[in-house]
């Protein structure tokens, strides 16, 4: 099939906004347990702003959509999540360049670039109980799927599955980065809010791609 185009990128962002709004309270509760309780509020504020900018200045390429998301999240979210997600989208934008459509290899490369941006900015490693613990399994699964010749939507599906498993796997960990790190063993048993929101957003990417593949209207609500 054809690669994923601008319609998909915009549909992903719109679907992410809906999913983040839907899970706002859940993310706040996760963050309240081991952080300061603002993650759901901040992400909701950021994605609401993305919706407004998509209406104002519709992007012409997937890369332009990623860049719009990057600049909006960096300027509206605050906390650690703003720069981390902002950097992720900015690196993804650079990775896909001016391409009008993304094939499986480019999708996997964009995810890897995003993850590398998060690591560079936040300096977290796997197992530190951060969003990296969702992103790294997702990147590995996407690379494997792309290498085996999977369609772009299947590459994103594999990434979303791995991100969800990765987020769940943060439950027993002691945090070594971010505000949860001050709790030491008291963080055990709680899911990292950033890993949880990462899994939601990667699932939204996969769902938007499945819709595109099945001809469903882009931007459909989750």
């Amino acid at each position: 099939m054809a690669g994923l185009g601008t319609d998909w990128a915009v549909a992903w962002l719109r679907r992410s906004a809906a999913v983040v709004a839907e899970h706002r309270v859940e993310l706040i509760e996760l963050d309240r347990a081991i952080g300061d309780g603002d993650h759901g509020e901040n992400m909701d504020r950021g994605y609401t702003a993305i919706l407004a900018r998509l209406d104002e200045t519709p992007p012409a390429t997937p890369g332009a959509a990623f860049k719009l998301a990057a600049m909006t999240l960096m300027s509206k979210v605050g906390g650690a999540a703003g720069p981390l997600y902002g950097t992720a989208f900015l690196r993804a934008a650079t990775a896909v360049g001016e391409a009008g459509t993304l094939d499986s290899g480019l999708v996997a490369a964009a995810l890897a670039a995003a993850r590398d941006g998060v690591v560079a900015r936040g300096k977290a490693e796997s197992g530190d109980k951060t969003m990296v613990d969702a992103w790294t399994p997702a990147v590995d699964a996407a690379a494997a799927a792309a290498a085996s010749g999977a369609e772009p939507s299947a590459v994103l599906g594999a990434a979303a599955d791995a991100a969800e498993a990765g987020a769940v796997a943060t439950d027993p960990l002691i945090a070594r980065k971010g505000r949860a790190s001050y709790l030491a063993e008291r963080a055990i048993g709680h899911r990292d809010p950033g890993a949880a929101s990462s899994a939601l957003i990667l699932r939204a990417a996969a769902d938007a791609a499945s819709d595109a593949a099945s001809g469903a209207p882009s931007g459909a609500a989750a």
Partner: protein
Amino acid sequence: MKKLINDPRAVVDESVDGFGRAHADLVTVHIDPLFITRKQAPKPGKVGLVSGGGSGHEPLHAGYVGFGMLDAAVPGAVFTSPTPDQIIPATVAANSGAGVVHIVKNYTGDVLNFETAAEMAQAEGVDVRTVLVNDDVAVEDSLYTAGRRGVGGTVLVEKIAGAAAERGDDLDAVTAIGRRVNENVRTMGVALSACTVPHAGVPSFELGDDEIEIGIGIHGEPGRHRIPMENADGITDRLLAPILADLSPAPGDKVLLFVNGMGGTPASELYIVYRHAVGVLEAAGLVVERSLVGNYITALEMQGASISVLRLDDEMTALWDAPVHTPALRWGV
């Protein structure tokens, strides 16, 4: 939740608006993006000082904008770091051409947003240096955490580095004195109650009537450990012990003793803490040369206090004594 607010989402905007009107002789409030500058900033030839962080710590940071302290302050949402689109214009506004120092508390969000903003301001031609404040001895294992947090010592860094900039020190010198203050100050805090973030509506953690949380930060996050309530002298001993162990001052060292309220503890209780703390320091052979007591870096309406001990040298003492005129700190003018 009972608070003197109108709309939980409008708390920062309405509060900063009132602040700007109350102190219109000293500060200018810039809206969208939100930041506060000193009247007539930038001062020609002077190094600019910019700080910022989540709201809810008032009077930090906007209360310290003015003569002898900050040139600009950048407030985020309550307990949430401000964003680069606020920090960059504040940095540009504070720059006279002599460069700008960012004073950043070591919290992950603050560090990431100021780091991003510093890179972008550099690209716009502003020479930016960063003084990272990490004075909180409650964080024992900084290798496996995000590191020690920036808490009470931030006020002392802003005052002393601000005085250095005001007397005309260059960018390197202001940065160096800011870092020297940070290296010589240690802080430890206690919470007697949690606090409630307006848009969350529920307390940030649960604390029983007979419990206290030792080693808290300033964002309503839990601390090092929880113990049964004790009297003021006992709690003061618990806060001072890790400070002195870490700072390891020598007998005869001169220090500044800063007892800070978290927002919900009356001044009378802070002075009870000060009374015992000064006795402990003197018994250890230290000379308490300067003091500061009051609500200077807070966590909303949290009951509690922090103690900071700064090892002084003659230059730091002179800069501490230098005139300052801001909404929250004023002497010598």
